């Protein structure tokens, strides 16, 4: 056990840190009022800069334009990005999920066609995975693709799609064989979003945002050359894809949480509670300390998990405790923030009295999604019960 960085890791971190301090823009936070489109163009420019600096696709093999970074280097990457408060990446799905999928399962032609443009953010990618009737039951995909000559004809619907409105391409999971059990008849297709019959509709969330979209496919013709991996073996391709989501990307999260925590402590010092600063109220102090401790434990759990993945090569089902921990912790934290702020906590962006321009009201509402997105807390507990503890399958 040695939590110090190795000399190589220090070198990587220092190089990245130097680059970020020279190149990472500092005005992202100020752009909240701009249009979604204008903000996204900004993010594309930022990713382009990362690409030119050699910092896009750091986990990708060097032969495909990546940096071949080790797992710990990836962890460091996301931590440094969070520390520098760098803007997010425009093509985060392409870089983190779809690129690696094409590298692992794609044809040479697909690699040649797509990978470089993912790295440079020239082409943005989204995913078509969830469906109205396939929420926690991921294999229950109904969006169908019928073979017609050298094309598949796609009909169906997807929901909870991110970036669809901005995307050039979509990694789509479709049912190519309706006559076999659920997991078996699925196929992954690469879909040009400009293909006739593809429709993107914004889906409004309880926060008021349209962070997600619905995708509709009406007789969309996709060449068979766009199949990734083998026909009817899309479940394995898609699962390999999802495993990446449990990877290092979350390493920056605890740094973001810690920053929110520090901001909340500052607010508690200036918020009045019973005639003195809330930060001196023993009840509030207990709650703040609890949040701090949980963020620390989230960090330690993550680091232990990354070390385990490093040793074994693959993320295991233990990743479910990370998911449960960060999502439920954020919900508890947002509630504590509300208690510190009292009635001010409910004020949304655009109110002059709102603290941090409504970020806390937004954070509170948005956090409800945390225990639903990327596998509900219930599903995660099923995974722990069955796959980690060996209890019988409960669903």
């Amino acid at each position: 056990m040695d939590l110090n960085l190795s000399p190589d890791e220090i070198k990587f971190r220092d190089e990245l840190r130097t680059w970020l301090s020279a190149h990472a823009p500092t005005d992202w936070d100020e752009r909240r009022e701009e249009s979604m489109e204008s903000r996204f163009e900004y993010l594309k420019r930022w990713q382009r800069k990362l690409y030119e600096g050699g910092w896009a696709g750091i986990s990708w093999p060097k032969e495909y334009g990546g940096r071949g970074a080790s797992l710990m280097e990836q962890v460091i990457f996301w931590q440094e990005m969070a520390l520098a408060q760098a803007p997010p990446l425009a093509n985060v799905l392409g870089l983190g999920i779809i690129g690696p999928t094409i590298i692992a399962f794609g044809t040479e032609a697909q690699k040649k066609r797509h990978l470089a443009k993912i790295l440079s953010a020239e082409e943005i990618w989204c995913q078509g995975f969830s469906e109205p009737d396939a929420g926690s039951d991921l294999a229950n995909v109904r969006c169908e693709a019928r073979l017609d000559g050298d094309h598949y004809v796609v009909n169906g619907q997807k929901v909870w799609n991110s970036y669809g409105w901005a995307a050039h391409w979509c990694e789509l999971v479709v049912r190519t064989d309706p006559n076999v059990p659920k997991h078996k008849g699925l196929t992954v297709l690469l879909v040009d979003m400009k293909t006739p019959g593809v429709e993107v509709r914004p889906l409004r969330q309880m926060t008021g945002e349209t962070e997600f979209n619905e995708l509709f496919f009406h007789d969309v013709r996709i060449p068979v050359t766009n199949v990734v991996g083998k026909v009817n073996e899309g479940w394995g391709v898609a699962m390999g894809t999802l495993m990446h989501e449990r990877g290092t990307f979350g390493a920056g999260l605890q740094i973001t949480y810690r920053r929110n925590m520090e901001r909340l402590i500052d607010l508690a010092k200036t918020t009045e509670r019973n005639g003195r600063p809330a930060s001196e109220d023993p009840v509030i102090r207990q709650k703040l300390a609890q949040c701090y401790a949980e963020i620390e434990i989230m960090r330690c759990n993550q680091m232990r998990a990354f070390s385990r993945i490093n040793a074994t090569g693959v993320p295991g089902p233990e990743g479910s405790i990370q998911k449960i921990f960060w999502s439920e912790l954020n919900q508890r934290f947002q509630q504590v923030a509300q208690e510190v702020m009292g009635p001010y906590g409910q004020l949304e962006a655009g109110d002059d009295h709102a603290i941090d321009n409504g970020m806390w009201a937004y954070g509170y509402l948005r956090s409800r999604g945390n225990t639903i997105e990327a596998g509900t807390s219930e599903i995660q507990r099923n995974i722990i019960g069955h796959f980690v503890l060996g209890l019988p399958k409960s669903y």
Partner: protein
Amino acid sequence: MQFGLSESQQILKDTAHKFFAGESPVAAVRKAMETETAYDAALWTKLAEQGFTGIIAPEEFGGMGLGKVELILLMEEAGYALLPGPFFSTVALAGTVIDACGSPEQKKKYLERIAAGQARATVALVESAGSWDTQGLKISSAGNKLTGTKLFVTDAAVADFIVVVARDGVFVADAKAPGLHIEPMKGMDLARKIYSVEFKDTPAEALGNPRGLAGALNVATAGLCAEMTGGMQRTLELTVAYAKTRKQFGKPIGIFQAVQHLCADMYLETESSRSATYYAAWALEENTPDAAASVSVAKMYASDAARNVGNRGIQVHGGMGFTWENDIHLYYRRAKASETMLGDATFHRERIARRIIDEASSGNKKERPRQAALASR
């Protein structure tokens, strides 16, 4: 002893339920909440025709003269329907304060108009410190003129007059009085808008009996708890209905204990909140020694329960619960706004602590426990 509704109480509740379902369905709520004030004048007229605007105003001032239990039954149904606009502010808050603090002439002037549906009103109390504790207020009158700013004032923009709680009394200011300036705030509850209200040498009329304030705020708080309970009930029903129809892994999700037990907890919390609220209303009506404490018990519990019920309801709904089109978030937003309104759980716990720790005579162990009052009357 009968801790259930009387026949006339049950009829009132059923009538209100049907009235709100018919006159203010959720489509109408959504329409109202998109407006600047969430106020629907036509609906208000109908509320007045039902007598609801005068539910607890004494008959001599044109009201129905019903009791606190009847008030909270009405509020519970209003909460169930997520009634938009200034009903709570006008009837449960301003009306109650005027009834408790006003002279007969003032009641005639203000309460009668409320009861008749001719005026809307609200109460301005919270200042920049964000607290509902009336002890810490800073604004005071100078020759019946008010100067300063009140925040989180519900429905101020549609109020005809505003009851202002100040350091040295309780005042009524006409909404059009000089120096009175109303600015919208952007709160989470889309169906009950909040405002900052600024006073600059604004003339205001002092109410004759400001000592009635605490009792009136207790009644308003019980009303708010009832509204919250109604919201929980609706959230529970929406959630159970969804759990019966939504299928995953080939079965309705309600068959999975992880989901079913979330629903069971929602039921437990909703029923418990209802019990506490009904008791508080009865205790206020009967003016029992524990009336104030029972209000704090109800608000403390409802503040936490409404949030928990909402959390669980959204969770059971999964992604659907996170969408704008699903009604559950509208209730969730109101639950959050109501959580801090008239004091959050921490505030009321400390109020309870003062009563059970500081005020209870120590060492007097043989004293008969007070809660036996139920069986001791």
